[in-house]
């Protein structure tokens, strides 16, 4: 038992050695090309966290000037998209990027890592951040904007970006909490009756999820003496009690499962996601559950692969039930936002299915699916909001006649809706096709059948919204508004996101290539470990101190 203290003492001395070694290079007068290059990378890795933070501060400082606030907010969102795009480019050409904050070498310091998966998701975060912000500028009431929407929004983006970049588990926990607390406040901002009711469930269950996560972190630390993801990947296979590791993996599954809203832990999502303003629902629907999915993908490819037969079979069943219960829940609903909320759950099932099958093709599919889903689901919420602006309702029975009044909006609904259901040639078709093919190759026929069935019911559900809101004549006692003011701010992001969906659908190659490279990285963590620890995997394993 005393090995841990001994190891820590040794590690401390090594850390000090490492710092001593670094001093000459930092105090040198000349700076070689490599250092400059590293500096630039470092900035790029930190920017997705810093830009939202600075934006939030700027917004808070200009509280009394709403126009200035909006300008800062927009500028910050554009900056985030630019920075994430640049980061993806660097990761694509230069491989996995990492930065040791404060120059404490891994696994002692705080590490930020960006592999292709993180970088791709960050770009999507940037895109959604900008699109939904434009929508919010055109749709959010002045009271909510005054009470801090912009600052919270950017802090939420910071939390999401941080979670995608975190290189150790405790850091991941902290970013989860950042996005969680901001999402709490965004959820109740405005203090509607419905918002308070939804938030009670959301807050309590998420507090429990965080505690599960933290307990799992503690137990994992007790087993291995490290929390750095790359270091854990080296040490976990050598833990003498694989059963304990699997037990800890189950705790992580529950914690991330609640965040990702998988069966049977999803019930908080449909209770809460329809209550805040559409802009808030849209960004939640797009990003929050996907952070949970990302965390699942990360830990179940990098860390917990010692008992795939058990853990990933469990994931498979979770995926099947998530897909089916989600769509069945959606069928019973009549509020546009509630239908869409249940579909989030069902779609999460497809992503988890990709992870559960655990073949290169399946992981590729899961990543493709996450990207496609974020774009499509956010867009559907935005279309729902635009329909509400015109028809004055979210209840299907109170809507109607939108196709006659706004054929353009009807087409803009059809693109994400049919993509969600998986019709060619839209992005959802490729996403589902890859997952289904991976399922057939892995001979998981039951899961494939469930996925096809869920896709079919999704189509029925989308047809229901189409029939009720767009096709049927407007109920006699209701009238359509012209959408003024600022309908353009509502439509522009919808058009952009629909264009992204179409582009992925018609020209899927680039995203497939990205997802493929990402899947390769995930299934062979050697590169990740080497990049972070700066040592080949055999050496890293040799450094380990025996008890």
């Amino acid at each position, binding site marked *: *038992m*005393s090995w*841990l*203290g*001994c190891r*820590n*003492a040794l590690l*401390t*001395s090594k850390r*000090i*050695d490492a710092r*001593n070694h670094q001093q000459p290079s930092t105090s040198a007068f000349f700076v070689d090309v490599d250092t400059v290059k590293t500096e630039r990378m470092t900035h790029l890795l930190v920017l997705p966290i810093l830009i939202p933070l600075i934006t939030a501060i700027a917004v808070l400082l200009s509280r009394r000037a709403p126009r200035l606030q909006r300008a800062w907010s927009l500028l910050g969102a554009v900056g985030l998209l630019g920075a994430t795009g640049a980061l993806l480019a660097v990761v694509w050409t230069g491989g996995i990027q990492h930065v040791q904050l404060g120059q404490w070498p891994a696994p002692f310091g705080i590490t930020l890592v960006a592999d292709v998966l993180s970088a791709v998701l960050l770009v999507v975060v940037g895109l959604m951040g900008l699109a939904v912000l434009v929508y919010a500028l055109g749709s959010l009431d002045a009271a909510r904007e005054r009470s801090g929407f912009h600052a919270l929004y950017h802090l939420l983006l910071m939390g999401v970006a941080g979670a995608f970049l975190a290189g150790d588990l*405790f850091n991941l926990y*902290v970013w989860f*909490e950042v996005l*969680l*607390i901001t999402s*709490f*406040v965004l959820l*109740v901002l405005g*203090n509607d*009756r*419905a918002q*308070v*009711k*939804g*938030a*009670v469930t959301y*807050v*309590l269950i998420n*507090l*429990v999820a*965080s*505690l599960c996560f*933290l*307990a799992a*972190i*503690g*137990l994992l*630390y*007790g087993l291995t003496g490290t929390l750095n993801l790359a270091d854990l990947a080296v040490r976990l296979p050598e833990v003498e009690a694989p059963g304990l590791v699997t037990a800890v993996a189950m705790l992580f599954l529950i914690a991330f499962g609640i965040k990702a809203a998988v069966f049977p832990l999803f019930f908080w999502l449909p209770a809460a996601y329809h*209550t805040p303003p559409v802009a808030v629902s849209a960004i939640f629907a797009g990003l929050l559950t996907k952070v949970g999915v990302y965390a699942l993908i990360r830990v179940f490819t990098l860390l917990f692969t010692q008992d795939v037969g058990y853990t990933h079979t469990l994931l498979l069943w979770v995926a099947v039930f998530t897909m089916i219960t989600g769509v069945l829940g959606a069928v019973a609903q009549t509020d546009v936002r509630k239908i869409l909320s249940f579909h989030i759950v069902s779609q999460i099932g497809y992503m988890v299915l990709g992870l559960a099958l655990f073949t290169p093709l399946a992981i590729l599919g899961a990543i493709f699916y996450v990207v496609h889903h974020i774009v499509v689901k956010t867009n559907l919420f935005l279309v729902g909001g635009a329909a509400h602006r015109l028809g*004055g*309702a*979210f*209840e299907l029975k*109170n809507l109607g006649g939108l196709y006659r009044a706004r054929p353009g909006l009807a087409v803009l609904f059809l693109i994400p809706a049919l993509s969600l259901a998986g019709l060619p040639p839209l992005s959802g078709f490729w996403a589902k096709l890859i997952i289904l093919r991976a399922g057939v190759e892995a001979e998981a026929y039951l899961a494939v059948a469930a996925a096809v069935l869920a896709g079919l019911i999704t189509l029925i559900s989308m047809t229901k919204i189409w029939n009720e809101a767009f096709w049927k004549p407007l109920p006699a006692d209701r009238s359509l508004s012209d959408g003024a003011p600022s309908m353009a701010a509502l439509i522009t992001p919808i058009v952009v996101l629909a264009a992204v969906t179409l582009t992925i659908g018609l020209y899927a190659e680039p995203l497939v290539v990205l997802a493929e490279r990402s899947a390769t990285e995930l299934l062979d963590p050697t590169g990740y470990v080497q990049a972070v620890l700066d040592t080949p995997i055999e050496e890293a394993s040799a450094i380990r101190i025996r008890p």
Partner: protein
Amino acid sequence: MDVLLALLAGLLTAAGVYLLIQRSLLRMLFGVILLSNAVNLILFVAGRTLRATPPIVPDGLMAPAAAVANPLPQALILTAIVIGFGLVAFAFVLLSRASATFETLDADELARLPERAPDIEEN
């Protein structure tokens, strides 16, 4: 010491879970608080409680002379306590708002209440 702390963590977890399955939302929140304390203890024990020497490097040395207590779990717990405090404070305010709005903190009753006030039509 480890065994004692482990038992205490178990006891706190059991009490926390018991409170979580109550119908009163306030009790559920108390359950969360107990659970969070149990988790902090788990973090603490995970770092091993072998020695009480503080991890301070003496003057003139680059590393502690003898084995010292593990400082990392304490840093983790400190962070967790701060975050937990913020979350619980928010949850209390939320519950007080819910009790003012719905005039109940019973989970079952709350679930039965409509989301909109009865006299307001869905907008």
